[in-house]
């Protein structure tokens, strides 16, 4: 499983300043022109997506997601259990 954070419509400098205050071990992808946001139709931050090994969007969580919750864990487990 690979995790990325995608930042839309903000510059590298702004993100770097943010990371100085709030360090994160997750890689952050820059989407300065909101291309990915537009492709996925993001209208709320944060929105999380789970993409399977075939590149299909399988799950979307709008707002802050409880990734340690029963529902999220069962979805992730199910996706991890699927054959590649």
């Amino acid at each position, binding site marked *: 499983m690979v995790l990325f954070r995608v930042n839309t*419509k903000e510059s590298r400098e702004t993100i770097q300043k943010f990371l100085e205050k709030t360090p994160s071990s997750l890689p952050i992808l820059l989407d300065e022109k*909101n291309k990915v*946001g*537009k*492709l*996925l*139709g*993001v*209208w*709320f*931050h944060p929105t999380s997506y789970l993409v399977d090994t075939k590149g299909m*969007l399988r799950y979307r969580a*709008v707002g802050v997601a409880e990734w340690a919750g029963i529902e999220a864990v069962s979805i992730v487990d199910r996706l991890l259990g699927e054959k590649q």
Partner: protein
Amino acid sequence: MTIWAFLIFLPFWMIQGCATSPPPRADSPLIPLAKANLEAVLEEQEGLEILWDNAKEVRDFYRGGVQQKSQAENKYREKSYSEALKLYDKSEEFFLVVLKYINHDSCEYMLFEGTHILFLPNLLMADNYLKTGRILKEMSRDSSARRKWKSALPYIQQSLRCERTEWGLAIEQELNSLLESSKR
């Protein structure tokens, strides 16, 4: 007794007054076609296709409605009328869900800070009905065409109550002229 009677009847009189007065128009300046137009709306909602079964939020239904409309417009231009009619119908199904929850058009609908879109479900419904009416007329189904144009009127009026767009006014003018000419 007279005072009581007055107090009881006043609300009904006020309600009747609202119902019979002409629909108010947005008093904001006219939004030019260069800002609010079909191409701009379609372009904003390009991307991964929203399937009916996957749509969960109002925004998904709006996006789905616009995407179906985009396909319908292509078929309409190609004169593939029966396919266009089906796609316009699908688009309307999406928009009707939107309108259950947000019956308000806006040219500056905020998605998130710094990102606004054209959110015009009423206008797009009216535009769909205008075009499906034109197709039906082309198929010599005059009374069905007329019904479609009549159905478009409340949507375009609601749109113009929220946002006075040059696009909306053009649709309203065309609907009125088509309805007038189809009377003859």
